């Protein structure tokens, strides 16, 4: 290392690609990140993007309003396909959320410094994805105003939820996940809210940020307990995130429907969740760093690492597909074998092949260093993977339900315009929330960036 520079493309150089651009100080990271919120004028592009997203969200509101008036009959669901888009979208959104917790909690425990500049917006993404996910089972109940039945409350009828049901596990898992993610995010935001309070110029901003910061003053005694709490939350969120998609997979695996009733579902769902989540983080990070000039903070190293995580989890998912396929044939169970045939040759086979193309074949391009460092390719790839993961849930839900045990119970499923309006509408809601988030809260954790500056300046000495 000491004599003779390694060639420009060597692993040495790659490893040393910094997680933060050179020449940054405590003041400069604070200025740069807080100015996005406090002083930078709102651009025309922001208004245009927000308007589009907000219109889509409006479409969702109309679709849900019509659903509440007419009932779930406006959707394409009917017996035997009672689940349809609602559950496909629910699982897809929940999965996307998982990368945020993985980045903020698991990479924190593993002391991965590169997580610092992406954890804040990844956690925001988690919260918004969980919000989108939560809508679907709620409206899928048909009478969403009765949804409180799923929570244990002392009713006059003396009724209690059926705790042996995976659907009740789901209620607890998803609501715990949403709550803990919100707390984790808020605790991380606390010092940054204090920064915004101290730097805000307008009185209303000072009051709002000041209220949220709760009087945080950076006392060493406070930091001492804060760090304990943050570490514990990371330690608690780690098993939690693994449990959430496990419980979601139980919704399928506990049932006896062919193609669902397998023990491989929990790990394979968790890997798929992280896979789609990292894809979504890339989908958001690439425009974010471009528009707000954050290339110094979200460096190529971050994009490269995220692409590698995508590749690794994508391979786990591919392994899952392979074993799902193999075990169905190996079991000799005629319903399982039939299901595999239906995936390969049935009416929904094009979806299965598209899924293999999006989730297994395309991501293999990420083995290439050049392609991992091509921002445009990464962006397209992240969208392809998100489509692939959506198709995966579609294949699981629809093919199994349309082709179970007896031909008299077979059917077809096609979504209606209301299904699409609700689905695309939640994407609009997700983007709307992200647009609001980058305007009112620091998209990168300022306190942790200062910590990173301190650590990197120490290393240079």
């Amino acid at each position, binding site marked *: 290392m000491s004599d003779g520079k390694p060639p420009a493309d060597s692993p040495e150089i790659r490893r040393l690609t910094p997680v933060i651009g050179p020449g940054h100080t405590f003041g400069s990271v604070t200025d740069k990140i807080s100015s996005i919120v406090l002083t930078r004028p709102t651009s025309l592009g922001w208004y245009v993007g927000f308007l589009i997203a907000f219109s889509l969200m409006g479409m969702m509101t109309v679709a849900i309003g019509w659903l509440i008036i007419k009932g779930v009959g406006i959707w394409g669901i009917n017996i035997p396909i009672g689940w349809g888009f609602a559950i496909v979208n629910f699982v897809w959104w929940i999965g996307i959320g998982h990368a945020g917790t993985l980045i903020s909690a698991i990479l924190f425990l593993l002391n991965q410094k590169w997580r610092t500049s992406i954890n804040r917006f990844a956690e925001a993404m988690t919260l918004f994805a969980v919000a989108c996910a939560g809508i679907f089972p709620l409206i899928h109940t048909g009478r969403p105003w009765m949804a409180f039945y799923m929570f244990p409350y002392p009713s006059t009828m003396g009724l209690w939820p059926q705790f*042996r049901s995976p659907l009740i596990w789901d209620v607890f898992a998803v609501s715990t996940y949403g709550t803990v993610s919100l*707390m984790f995010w808020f605790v991380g935001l606390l010092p940054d809210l204090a920064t915004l309070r101290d730097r805000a110029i307008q009185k209303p901003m000072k009051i709002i940020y000041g209220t949220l910061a709760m009087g945080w*003053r*950076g006392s*060493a005694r406070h930091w001492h307990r804060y760090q304990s*709490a943050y570490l514990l939350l990371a330690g608690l969120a780690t098993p939690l995130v693994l*449990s959430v998609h496990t419980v979601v997979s139980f919704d399928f695996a506990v049932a006896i429907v062919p193609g669902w009733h397998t023990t491989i579902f929990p790990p394979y769902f968790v890997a798929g969740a992280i896979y789609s989540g990292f894809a979504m983080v890339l989908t958001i990070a690439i425009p974010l760093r471009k528009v707000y000039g954050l290339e110094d903070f979200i460096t190529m190293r971050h994009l490269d690492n995220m692409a590698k995580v995508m590749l690794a989890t994508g391979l786990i998912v591919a392994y899952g597909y392979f074993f799902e396929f193999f075990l169905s044939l190996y079991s000799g169970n005629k319903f399982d074998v039939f299901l595999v045939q239906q995936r390969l040759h049935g009416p929904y086979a094009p979806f299965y092949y598209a899924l293999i193309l999006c989730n297994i074949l395309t991501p293999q391009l990420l083995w290439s260093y050049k392609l991992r460092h091509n921002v445009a390719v990464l962006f397209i790839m992240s969208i392809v993977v998100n489509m692939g993961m959506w198709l995966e849930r579609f294949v699981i839900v629809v093919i199994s339900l349309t082709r179970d045990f007896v031909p008299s119970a077979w059917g077809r499923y096609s979504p209606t315009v209301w299904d699409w309006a609700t689905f695309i509408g939640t994407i609009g809601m997700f983007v709307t929330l992200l647009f609001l988030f980058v305007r009112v809260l620091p998209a990168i954790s300022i306190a942790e960036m*200062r910590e990173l500056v301190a650590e990197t300046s120490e290393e240079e000495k």
Partner: protein
Amino acid sequence: MMQRHSHLYGVMGEFGTPEELLQAVEKVRAAGYHRFDAFAPFPVEGLSEALGLKRNLVPAITLLGGLAGGIGGFFFQYWAAAITYPLNIGGRPLNSWPAFIPVTFELTILGASFAAVFGMLALNKLPQPNHPIFNAHRFTHASSDRFFVCIESKDPKFRLEEVSRLLQNVHAHHITEVSLD
């Protein structure tokens, strides 16, 4: 003594780097002061040790929260499914405990997380909208790029001149008196 400085919360020195802060804290502590605090825009490594902070109560509170959530969650399900609302489904056992594990697990995490967050806030006495330290003009930098040490006037050893001299000796960039109101 206390009478003379009744308007004074303490004396505050400002530093530019975490290393300067650590040195200052060690010197102030060595000089025998107890009622003083350091302020930093991010958790400085070694600062807790320099201040002599012991282990805190957050982990214990979190454990209690987790236990309460887990034990309470399990027995609540037992009570609901086996005692108050039993359903005989083909003679299967009412206390089907494996089926209660997912919810028990989630409630353990929920209880522990609530305890960690609210325990931390309570021990830090937050929310606390106002504090005398905010009266110091330059303290807004404590949340961006400066580090501070404040020796409180309540410290039994507190003498205005001595404290100021001590902060000068540890090379504080600015030394300010922080008033109580």
